[in-house]
Protein backbone atom coordinates (compact mmCIF):
# COMPACT_ATOMS: atom_id res chain seq x y z
CA UNK A 1 0.00 0.00 0.00
CA UNK A 2 2.87 2.32 0.93
CA UNK A 3 4.59 1.53 -2.36
CA UNK A 4 1.42 2.29 -4.29
CA UNK A 5 1.08 5.67 -2.57
CA UNK A 6 4.74 6.47 -3.19
CA UNK A 7 4.31 5.47 -6.84
CA UNK A 8 1.26 7.75 -7.16
CA UNK A 9 3.14 10.67 -5.58
CA UNK A 10 6.01 10.08 -8.00
CA UNK A 11 3.57 10.20 -10.91
CA UNK A 12 2.21 13.55 -9.69
CA UNK A 13 5.76 14.84 -9.35
CA UNK A 14 6.65 13.78 -12.90
CA UNK A 15 3.41 15.38 -14.13
CA UNK A 16 4.21 18.66 -12.32
CA UNK A 17 7.72 18.60 -13.77
CA UNK A 18 6.41 17.81 -17.27
CA UNK A 19 3.98 20.73 -16.96
CA UNK A 20 6.83 23.08 -16.13
CA UNK A 21 8.81 21.88 -19.17
CA UNK A 22 5.95 21.63 -21.72
CA UNK A 23 3.97 24.64 -20.51
CA UNK A 24 0.46 24.83 -19.02
CA UNK A 25 -1.28 24.98 -22.42
CA UNK A 26 0.05 21.56 -23.47
CA UNK A 27 0.15 19.95 -20.03
CA UNK A 28 -1.56 21.81 -17.19
CA UNK A 29 -0.27 21.21 -13.66
CA UNK A 30 -2.18 18.77 -11.41
CA UNK A 31 -3.57 21.60 -9.25
CA UNK A 32 -5.02 23.45 -12.27
CA UNK A 33 -6.82 20.27 -13.35
CA UNK A 34 -8.07 19.78 -9.79
CA UNK A 35 -9.54 23.31 -9.81
CA UNK A 36 -11.49 22.60 -13.03
CA UNK A 37 -12.66 19.24 -11.64
CA UNK A 38 -13.94 21.15 -8.58
CA UNK A 39 -15.83 23.73 -10.60
CA UNK A 40 -17.37 21.10 -12.92
CA UNK A 41 -18.39 19.06 -9.87
CA UNK A 42 -19.99 22.11 -8.20
CA UNK A 43 -22.00 22.89 -11.33
CA UNK A 44 -23.16 19.24 -11.44
CA UNK A 45 -21.98 18.79 -15.04
CA UNK A 46 -19.22 16.40 -14.06
CA UNK A 47 -21.61 14.01 -12.29
CA UNK A 48 -24.24 14.17 -15.05
CA UNK A 49 -21.63 13.29 -17.67
CA UNK A 50 -20.00 10.63 -15.51
CA UNK A 51 -23.40 9.03 -14.85
CA UNK A 52 -24.27 9.07 -18.58
CA UNK A 53 -21.00 7.36 -19.47
CA UNK A 54 -21.23 4.90 -16.59
CA UNK A 55 -24.77 3.96 -17.67
CA UNK A 56 -23.58 3.23 -21.20
CA UNK A 57 -20.61 1.23 -19.87
CA UNK A 58 -22.91 -0.82 -17.62
CA UNK A 59 -25.49 -1.51 -20.34
CA UNK A 60 -23.04 -2.45 -23.09
CA UNK A 61 -20.86 -4.44 -20.68
CA UNK A 62 -23.85 -6.47 -19.42
CA UNK A 63 -25.06 -7.07 -22.97
CA UNK A 64 -21.62 -8.14 -24.24
CA UNK A 65 -20.93 -10.37 -21.24
CA UNK A 66 -24.37 -12.01 -21.30
CA UNK A 67 -24.51 -12.72 -25.01
CA UNK A 68 -20.77 -13.42 -25.28
CA UNK A 69 -20.90 -15.94 -22.42
CA UNK A 70 -23.91 -17.74 -23.90
CA UNK A 71 -22.30 -17.83 -27.37
CA UNK A 72 -18.93 -18.93 -25.97
CA UNK A 73 -20.58 -21.74 -23.98
CA UNK A 74 -22.46 -22.96 -27.06
CA UNK A 75 -19.36 -22.78 -29.24
CA UNK A 76 -17.20 -24.51 -26.64
CA UNK A 77 -19.63 -27.38 -26.14
CA UNK A 78 -21.04 -27.87 -29.64
CA UNK A 79 -18.73 -28.53 -32.57
CA UNK A 80 -21.33 -27.64 -35.22
CA UNK A 81 -22.14 -24.28 -33.65
CA UNK A 82 -18.41 -23.63 -33.24
CA UNK A 83 -17.74 -24.37 -36.92
CA UNK A 84 -20.69 -22.21 -37.91
CA UNK A 85 -19.85 -19.19 -35.75
CA UNK A 86 -16.05 -19.27 -35.78
CA UNK A 87 -15.60 -17.34 -39.07
CA UNK A 88 -18.03 -14.66 -37.82
CA UNK A 89 -16.11 -14.44 -34.58
CA UNK A 90 -12.80 -13.99 -36.41
CA UNK A 91 -14.31 -11.25 -38.61
CA UNK A 92 -15.73 -9.42 -35.56
CA UNK A 93 -12.49 -9.80 -33.60
CA UNK A 94 -10.57 -8.16 -36.44
CA UNK A 95 -13.08 -5.48 -37.37
CA UNK A 96 -11.85 -2.08 -36.07
CA UNK A 97 -14.04 -0.64 -33.32
CA UNK A 98 -14.41 2.59 -35.28
CA UNK A 99 -15.91 0.77 -38.30
CA UNK A 100 -18.57 -0.90 -36.13
CA UNK A 101 -19.41 2.38 -34.38
CA UNK A 102 -19.73 4.41 -37.60
CA UNK A 103 -21.78 1.67 -39.30
CA UNK A 104 -24.07 1.41 -36.25
CA UNK A 105 -24.70 5.18 -36.32
CA UNK A 106 -25.37 5.09 -40.08
CA UNK A 107 -27.66 2.05 -39.97
CA UNK A 108 -29.49 2.58 -36.67
CA UNK A 109 -29.19 6.35 -36.23
CA UNK A 110 -27.52 8.62 -33.69
CA UNK A 111 -29.22 7.13 -30.64
CA UNK A 112 -28.55 5.11 -27.48
CA UNK A 113 -29.43 1.77 -29.11
CA UNK A 114 -26.77 2.27 -31.76
CA UNK A 115 -24.22 3.52 -29.21
CA UNK A 116 -24.70 0.70 -26.70
CA UNK A 117 -25.11 -1.94 -29.43
CA UNK A 118 -21.89 -0.86 -31.15
CA UNK A 119 -19.89 -1.04 -27.91
CA UNK A 120 -21.39 -4.43 -27.01
CA UNK A 121 -20.64 -5.77 -30.49
CA UNK A 122 -17.02 -4.69 -30.09
CA UNK A 123 -16.64 -6.55 -26.80
CA UNK A 124 -18.85 -9.59 -27.52
CA UNK A 125 -16.39 -11.57 -29.71
CA UNK A 126 -13.67 -11.12 -27.12
CA UNK A 127 -15.90 -12.53 -24.36
CA UNK A 128 -17.15 -15.37 -26.57
CA UNK A 129 -13.61 -16.39 -27.53
CA UNK A 130 -12.46 -16.39 -23.88
CA UNK A 131 -15.50 -18.27 -22.58
CA UNK A 132 -15.25 -20.78 -25.45
CA UNK A 133 -11.79 -21.77 -24.18
CA UNK A 134 -13.27 -22.20 -20.71
CA UNK A 135 -16.11 -24.36 -22.00
CA UNK A 136 -13.64 -26.50 -23.94
CA UNK A 137 -11.62 -27.07 -20.78
CA UNK A 138 -14.59 -28.40 -18.77
CA UNK A 139 -13.72 -31.41 -16.61
CA UNK A 140 -15.87 -34.20 -18.08
CA UNK A 141 -15.32 -36.38 -15.00
CA UNK A 142 -17.14 -33.86 -12.78
CA UNK A 143 -20.03 -33.73 -15.22
CA UNK A 144 -20.22 -37.53 -15.14
CA UNK A 145 -20.29 -37.44 -11.35
CA UNK A 146 -23.09 -34.86 -11.40
CA UNK A 147 -25.12 -37.00 -13.83
CA UNK A 148 -24.67 -40.19 -11.81
CA UNK A 149 -25.89 -38.37 -8.70
CA UNK A 150 -28.81 -37.04 -10.78
CA UNK A 151 -28.07 -33.40 -9.98
CA UNK A 152 -30.75 -31.16 -11.55
CA UNK A 153 -29.61 -29.09 -14.56
CA UNK A 154 -29.76 -25.87 -12.54
CA UNK A 155 -27.46 -27.33 -9.88
CA UNK A 156 -25.06 -28.61 -12.54
CA UNK A 157 -24.90 -25.21 -14.23
CA UNK A 158 -24.46 -23.30 -10.97
CA UNK A 159 -22.15 -25.63 -9.08
CA UNK A 160 -20.34 -27.67 -11.74
CA UNK A 161 -20.10 -25.57 -14.92
CA UNK A 162 -19.99 -21.94 -13.75
CA UNK A 163 -17.20 -22.40 -11.17
CA UNK A 164 -15.06 -23.99 -13.89
CA UNK A 165 -15.83 -21.01 -16.08
CA UNK A 166 -15.07 -18.48 -13.32
CA UNK A 167 -11.39 -17.83 -14.18
CA UNK A 168 -12.34 -17.28 -17.83
CA UNK A 169 -15.26 -15.03 -16.87
CA UNK A 170 -12.94 -13.07 -14.57
CA UNK A 171 -10.45 -12.61 -17.42
CA UNK A 172 -13.26 -11.54 -19.77
CA UNK A 173 -14.61 -9.13 -17.12
CA UNK A 174 -11.22 -7.54 -16.50
CA UNK A 175 -10.37 -7.03 -20.17
CA UNK A 176 -14.02 -6.22 -20.89
CA UNK A 177 -14.33 -3.36 -18.44
CA UNK A 178 -11.18 -1.64 -19.65
CA UNK A 179 -12.09 -2.16 -23.31
CA UNK A 180 -15.74 -1.17 -22.96
CA UNK A 181 -15.19 2.16 -21.23
CA UNK A 182 -12.57 3.19 -23.77
CA UNK A 183 -14.91 2.39 -26.66
CA UNK A 184 -17.82 4.15 -24.91
CA UNK A 185 -15.77 7.36 -24.92
CA UNK A 186 -15.25 7.06 -28.69
CA UNK A 187 -18.96 6.36 -29.22
CA UNK A 188 -19.84 9.46 -27.17
CA UNK A 189 -17.29 11.59 -28.97
CA UNK A 190 -18.73 10.60 -32.35
CA UNK A 191 -22.44 10.72 -31.72
CA UNK A 192 -23.82 11.39 -28.25
CA UNK A 193 -24.86 14.74 -26.72
CA UNK A 194 -23.45 14.00 -23.25
CA UNK A 195 -20.97 11.84 -21.38
CA UNK A 196 -17.24 12.01 -20.71
CA UNK A 197 -16.44 11.24 -24.37
CA UNK A 198 -18.66 14.12 -25.53
CA UNK A 199 -16.94 16.55 -23.11
CA UNK A 200 -13.52 15.34 -24.26
CA UNK A 201 -14.62 16.04 -27.85
CA UNK A 202 -15.58 19.61 -26.90
CA UNK A 203 -12.27 20.08 -25.08
CA UNK A 204 -10.43 18.80 -28.16
CA UNK A 205 -12.22 21.30 -30.41
CA UNK A 206 -11.30 24.13 -27.99
CA UNK A 207 -7.79 22.72 -27.51
CA UNK A 208 -8.54 22.82 -23.77
CA UNK A 209 -6.22 20.17 -22.26
CA UNK A 210 -7.18 21.14 -18.68
CA UNK A 211 -10.87 20.41 -19.32
CA UNK A 212 -9.93 17.22 -21.20
CA UNK A 213 -7.98 15.91 -18.20
CA UNK A 214 -10.63 17.18 -15.76
CA UNK A 215 -13.15 14.80 -17.36
CA UNK A 216 -10.82 11.91 -18.22
CA UNK A 217 -9.14 11.55 -14.82
CA UNK A 218 -12.27 11.26 -12.60
CA UNK A 219 -13.59 8.60 -14.96
CA UNK A 220 -10.32 6.66 -14.83
CA UNK A 221 -10.54 6.96 -11.04
CA UNK A 222 -14.13 5.68 -11.08
CA UNK A 223 -13.19 2.65 -13.19
CA UNK A 224 -10.21 1.94 -10.93
CA UNK A 225 -12.52 2.10 -7.91
CA UNK A 226 -14.93 -0.37 -9.54
CA UNK A 227 -12.02 -2.67 -10.40
CA UNK A 228 -10.58 -2.48 -6.87
CA UNK A 229 -13.74 -2.58 -4.77
CA UNK A 230 -16.11 -4.63 -6.93
CA UNK A 231 -14.28 -6.81 -9.48
CA UNK A 232 -11.31 -7.85 -7.35
CA UNK A 233 -13.31 -8.79 -4.21
CA UNK A 234 -15.71 -10.86 -6.35
CA UNK A 235 -12.75 -12.57 -8.00
CA UNK A 236 -11.17 -13.27 -4.60
CA UNK A 237 -14.45 -14.69 -3.31
CA UNK A 238 -15.02 -17.09 -6.21
CA UNK A 239 -11.45 -18.36 -6.13
CA UNK A 240 -11.17 -18.67 -2.32
CA UNK A 241 -11.16 -22.48 -2.60
CA UNK A 242 -7.83 -22.54 -4.44
CA UNK A 243 -5.29 -23.95 -1.96
CA UNK A 244 -2.35 -21.98 -3.36
CA UNK A 245 -4.05 -18.63 -2.82
CA UNK A 246 -2.42 -16.47 -0.13
Amino acid at each position, binding site marked *: MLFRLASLLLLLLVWELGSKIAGARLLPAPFEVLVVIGSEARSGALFINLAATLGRVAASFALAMGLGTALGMLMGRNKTIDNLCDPWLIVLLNLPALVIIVLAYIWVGLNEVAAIGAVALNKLPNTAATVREGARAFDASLD*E*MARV*FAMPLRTRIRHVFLPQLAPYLAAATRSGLSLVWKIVLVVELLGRPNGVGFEIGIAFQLFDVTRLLAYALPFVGLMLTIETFVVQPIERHVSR*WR*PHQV
Partner: protein
Amino acid sequence: MSPAGDRIKFEIAIASKTLRTAAGAMRVVLRDVAFSLKEGEVCALLGPSGCGKTTLLRIIAGIDRDFEGRLALPSRHKIGMVFQEPRLLPWRSVADNLRLAGASNETSLAEIASALGLDLHLDHFPGELSLGLARRVAIARAFAIKPDLLLLDEPFVSLDAALAMRLREELIALVETRKATTLIVTHDVDEAIALADRIIVLSAAPGRIVAEATIETARLALTPERAAGVKSALLARIAAAA
Protein backbone atom coordinates in the same frame (compact mmCIF):
# COMPACT_ATOMS: atom_id res chain seq x y z
CA MET B 1 -24.34 -66.48 5.20
CA SER B 2 -25.34 -63.77 2.77
CA PRO B 3 -27.41 -60.92 4.23
CA ALA B 4 -29.05 -60.33 0.84
CA GLY B 5 -32.75 -60.89 0.39
CA ASP B 6 -34.14 -63.15 -2.34
CA ARG B 7 -35.81 -60.35 -4.30
CA ILE B 8 -33.92 -59.53 -7.48
CA LYS B 9 -33.61 -55.79 -7.74
CA PHE B 10 -31.27 -55.14 -10.65
CA GLU B 11 -30.71 -57.20 -13.78
CA ILE B 12 -27.80 -56.54 -16.07
CA ALA B 13 -27.44 -58.21 -19.47
CA ILE B 14 -24.74 -56.81 -21.74
CA ALA B 15 -24.57 -58.63 -25.09
CA SER B 16 -21.59 -56.63 -26.26
CA LYS B 17 -19.83 -53.36 -25.70
CA THR B 18 -17.21 -51.97 -28.06
CA LEU B 19 -14.85 -49.06 -27.56
CA ARG B 20 -12.86 -47.11 -30.11
CA THR B 21 -9.12 -47.31 -29.45
CA ALA B 22 -6.79 -44.33 -29.75
CA ALA B 23 -5.72 -45.71 -33.15
CA GLY B 24 -9.35 -45.63 -34.30
CA ALA B 25 -9.97 -49.39 -34.31
CA MET B 26 -13.05 -50.86 -32.62
CA ARG B 27 -12.35 -53.22 -29.73
CA VAL B 28 -14.87 -55.45 -27.96
CA VAL B 29 -14.45 -54.95 -24.22
CA LEU B 30 -17.46 -56.85 -22.86
CA ARG B 31 -19.30 -59.85 -24.27
CA ASP B 32 -22.30 -61.70 -22.86
CA VAL B 33 -22.09 -60.41 -19.33
CA ALA B 34 -25.35 -61.13 -17.55
CA PHE B 35 -26.06 -61.20 -13.84
CA SER B 36 -28.56 -59.93 -11.32
CA LEU B 37 -28.28 -58.26 -7.95
CA LYS B 38 -30.56 -59.08 -5.06
CA GLU B 39 -31.79 -56.45 -2.68
CA GLY B 40 -29.10 -55.60 -0.12
CA GLU B 41 -26.53 -57.84 -1.78
CA VAL B 42 -22.88 -56.85 -2.03
CA CYS B 43 -21.42 -58.20 -5.23
CA ALA B 44 -17.80 -57.87 -6.32
CA LEU B 45 -16.72 -57.80 -9.95
CA LEU B 46 -13.23 -59.21 -10.06
CA GLY B 47 -11.00 -59.23 -13.10
CA PRO B 48 -7.64 -58.24 -14.54
CA SER B 49 -6.92 -54.65 -15.61
CA GLY B 50 -8.55 -53.73 -18.91
CA CYS B 51 -11.22 -56.45 -18.79
CA GLY B 52 -14.07 -53.93 -18.91
CA LYS B 53 -14.99 -53.74 -15.20
CA THR B 54 -15.10 -49.95 -15.11
CA THR B 55 -16.88 -49.85 -18.48
CA LEU B 56 -19.54 -52.17 -17.05
CA LEU B 57 -19.95 -49.92 -14.02
CA ARG B 58 -20.27 -46.86 -16.27
CA ILE B 59 -23.00 -48.61 -18.25
CA ILE B 60 -24.92 -49.46 -15.07
CA ALA B 61 -24.45 -45.89 -13.77
CA GLY B 62 -25.99 -44.55 -16.99
CA ILE B 63 -22.88 -42.65 -18.06
CA ASP B 64 -22.29 -44.91 -21.06
CA ARG B 65 -25.41 -45.76 -23.05
CA ASP B 66 -23.73 -47.04 -26.20
CA PHE B 67 -23.95 -50.81 -25.75
CA GLU B 68 -25.92 -53.83 -26.90
CA GLY B 69 -28.03 -55.43 -24.22
CA ARG B 70 -30.40 -54.27 -21.54
CA LEU B 71 -30.51 -53.08 -17.97
CA ALA B 72 -33.52 -53.76 -15.80
CA LEU B 73 -33.36 -51.23 -12.98
CA PRO B 74 -36.26 -49.95 -10.85
CA SER B 75 -37.93 -46.98 -12.55
CA ARG B 76 -37.10 -44.52 -9.75
CA HIS B 77 -33.77 -45.47 -8.32
CA LYS B 78 -30.92 -43.53 -6.74
CA ILE B 79 -27.36 -44.45 -7.63
CA GLY B 80 -24.43 -43.57 -5.41
CA MET B 81 -21.03 -44.02 -6.95
CA VAL B 82 -17.47 -43.93 -5.70
CA PHE B 83 -15.13 -43.35 -8.63
CA GLN B 84 -11.47 -44.31 -8.86
CA GLU B 85 -10.66 -40.63 -8.21
CA PRO B 86 -12.66 -38.74 -5.54
CA ARG B 87 -14.26 -36.38 -8.14
CA LEU B 88 -15.23 -33.78 -5.53
CA LEU B 89 -16.22 -30.25 -6.48
CA PRO B 90 -13.06 -28.38 -5.42
CA TRP B 91 -14.88 -25.02 -5.04
CA ARG B 92 -17.42 -26.35 -2.55
CA SER B 93 -16.83 -27.41 1.05
CA VAL B 94 -16.99 -31.05 2.10
CA ALA B 95 -20.47 -30.52 3.55
CA ASP B 96 -21.65 -28.82 0.35
CA ASN B 97 -20.28 -31.69 -1.73
CA LEU B 98 -22.47 -34.06 0.27
CA ARG B 99 -25.49 -31.71 0.09
CA LEU B 100 -25.22 -31.08 -3.65
CA ALA B 101 -25.03 -34.81 -4.38
CA GLY B 102 -28.40 -35.05 -2.65
CA ALA B 103 -27.70 -35.93 1.01
CA SER B 104 -31.20 -36.72 2.22
CA ASN B 105 -31.04 -34.36 5.25
CA GLU B 106 -28.66 -32.66 7.66
CA THR B 107 -28.97 -35.47 10.22
CA SER B 108 -27.96 -38.18 7.78
CA LEU B 109 -25.17 -35.92 6.52
CA ALA B 110 -23.83 -35.53 10.07
CA GLU B 111 -24.21 -39.26 10.71
CA ILE B 112 -22.27 -40.35 7.64
CA ALA B 113 -19.61 -37.69 8.25
CA SER B 114 -19.19 -38.95 11.79
CA ALA B 115 -19.03 -42.60 10.67
CA LEU B 116 -16.15 -41.76 8.35
CA GLY B 117 -14.35 -39.40 10.73
CA LEU B 118 -15.13 -36.29 8.70
CA ASP B 119 -16.77 -34.21 11.45
CA LEU B 120 -13.86 -31.81 11.69
CA HIS B 121 -13.49 -31.45 7.94
CA LEU B 122 -17.02 -30.52 6.89
CA ASP B 123 -16.08 -26.87 6.30
CA HIS B 124 -12.85 -27.67 4.48
CA PHE B 125 -12.41 -27.44 0.74
CA PRO B 126 -11.32 -30.67 -1.02
CA GLY B 127 -7.98 -29.09 -1.91
CA GLU B 128 -7.19 -28.91 1.81
CA LEU B 129 -7.68 -32.67 2.29
CA SER B 130 -5.26 -35.56 1.93
CA LEU B 131 -6.08 -38.21 -0.69
CA GLY B 132 -7.27 -40.56 2.05
CA LEU B 133 -9.68 -37.96 3.44
CA ALA B 134 -10.88 -37.03 -0.04
CA ARG B 135 -11.70 -40.70 -0.67
CA ARG B 136 -13.58 -40.81 2.62
CA VAL B 137 -15.64 -37.82 1.43
CA ALA B 138 -16.33 -39.61 -1.85
CA ILE B 139 -17.54 -42.68 0.07
CA ALA B 140 -19.60 -40.48 2.41
CA ARG B 141 -21.18 -38.75 -0.60
CA ALA B 142 -22.24 -42.07 -2.10
CA PHE B 143 -23.82 -43.25 1.17
CA ALA B 144 -25.30 -39.86 2.10
CA ILE B 145 -27.92 -40.03 -0.63
CA LYS B 146 -29.21 -43.38 0.73
CA PRO B 147 -28.73 -45.07 -2.65
CA ASP B 148 -30.76 -47.96 -4.00
CA LEU B 149 -27.62 -49.08 -5.79
CA LEU B 150 -24.10 -48.32 -4.67
CA LEU B 151 -21.34 -48.59 -7.28
CA LEU B 152 -17.73 -48.66 -6.13
CA ASP B 153 -15.00 -48.47 -8.74
CA GLU B 154 -11.76 -49.60 -7.10
CA PRO B 155 -12.29 -47.13 -4.25
CA PHE B 156 -8.94 -47.86 -2.60
CA VAL B 157 -6.72 -47.68 -5.67
CA SER B 158 -3.49 -45.67 -5.25
CA LEU B 159 -3.77 -45.60 -1.44
CA ASP B 160 -1.01 -47.10 0.69
CA ALA B 161 -1.76 -50.57 2.09
CA ALA B 162 -2.42 -49.44 5.68
CA LEU B 163 -4.82 -46.68 4.67
CA ALA B 164 -6.56 -48.95 2.16
CA MET B 165 -7.04 -51.54 4.90
CA ARG B 166 -8.48 -48.96 7.32
CA LEU B 167 -10.85 -47.57 4.72
CA ARG B 168 -11.91 -51.08 3.73
CA GLU B 169 -12.85 -51.78 7.36
CA GLU B 170 -14.84 -48.55 7.54
CA LEU B 171 -16.58 -49.47 4.30
CA ILE B 172 -17.45 -52.93 5.63
CA ALA B 173 -19.00 -51.30 8.72
CA LEU B 174 -21.05 -48.96 6.52
CA VAL B 175 -22.20 -51.72 4.20
CA GLU B 176 -23.23 -53.81 7.21
CA THR B 177 -25.28 -51.04 8.79
CA ARG B 178 -26.80 -49.43 5.70
CA LYS B 179 -27.70 -52.52 3.66
CA ALA B 180 -27.39 -50.88 0.25
CA THR B 181 -27.31 -53.11 -2.80
CA THR B 182 -23.68 -52.75 -3.80
CA LEU B 183 -21.55 -53.57 -6.80
CA ILE B 184 -17.84 -53.18 -6.22
CA VAL B 185 -15.22 -53.40 -8.94
CA THR B 186 -11.77 -54.56 -7.94
CA HIS B 187 -8.79 -56.52 -9.16
CA ASP B 188 -7.86 -57.47 -5.59
CA VAL B 189 -9.12 -60.94 -4.60
CA ASP B 190 -8.68 -60.26 -0.85
CA GLU B 191 -10.67 -57.04 -1.12
CA ALA B 192 -13.47 -58.84 -2.98
CA ILE B 193 -13.61 -61.63 -0.37
CA ALA B 194 -13.58 -59.15 2.54
CA LEU B 195 -16.40 -57.02 1.17
CA ALA B 196 -18.70 -59.15 -0.95
CA ASP B 197 -21.48 -61.69 -0.48
CA ARG B 198 -20.88 -62.86 -4.03
CA ILE B 199 -17.97 -62.59 -6.43
CA ILE B 200 -18.26 -62.54 -10.20
CA VAL B 201 -15.00 -63.12 -12.04
CA LEU B 202 -14.47 -61.60 -15.48
CA SER B 203 -11.95 -62.85 -18.04
CA ALA B 204 -9.36 -60.67 -19.73
CA ALA B 205 -10.79 -58.48 -22.55
CA PRO B 206 -13.29 -59.01 -23.96
CA GLY B 207 -14.64 -59.44 -20.45
CA ARG B 208 -17.06 -62.30 -19.93
CA ILE B 209 -18.09 -64.09 -16.76
CA VAL B 210 -15.79 -67.05 -16.12
CA ALA B 211 -16.63 -67.88 -12.52
CA GLU B 212 -19.02 -66.95 -9.76
CA ALA B 213 -18.78 -67.71 -6.07
CA THR B 214 -20.95 -66.98 -3.06
CA ILE B 215 -19.22 -66.22 0.23
CA GLU B 216 -21.11 -68.23 2.81
CA THR B 217 -19.43 -66.67 5.84
CA ALA B 218 -20.79 -63.34 7.06
CA ARG B 219 -18.38 -60.44 6.45
CA LEU B 220 -17.78 -59.66 10.12
CA ALA B 221 -17.18 -63.33 10.94
CA LEU B 222 -14.64 -63.80 8.17
CA THR B 223 -11.40 -64.89 9.86
CA PRO B 224 -8.08 -64.76 7.96
CA GLU B 225 -8.10 -68.59 7.81
CA ARG B 226 -11.63 -68.71 6.41
CA ALA B 227 -10.77 -65.93 3.91
CA ALA B 228 -7.72 -67.91 2.79
CA GLY B 229 -9.93 -70.96 2.25
CA VAL B 230 -12.42 -68.97 0.19
CA LYS B 231 -9.57 -67.48 -1.83
CA SER B 232 -7.99 -70.83 -2.71
CA ALA B 233 -11.39 -72.27 -3.68
CA LEU B 234 -12.09 -69.23 -5.86
CA LEU B 235 -8.67 -69.37 -7.52
CA ALA B 236 -9.17 -73.08 -8.22
CA ARG B 237 -12.53 -72.32 -9.85
CA ILE B 238 -10.97 -69.58 -11.98
CA ALA B 239 -8.16 -71.92 -13.03
CA ALA B 240 -10.68 -74.61 -13.95
CA ALA B 241 -12.70 -72.13 -16.01
CA ALA B 242 -9.59 -70.95 -17.84
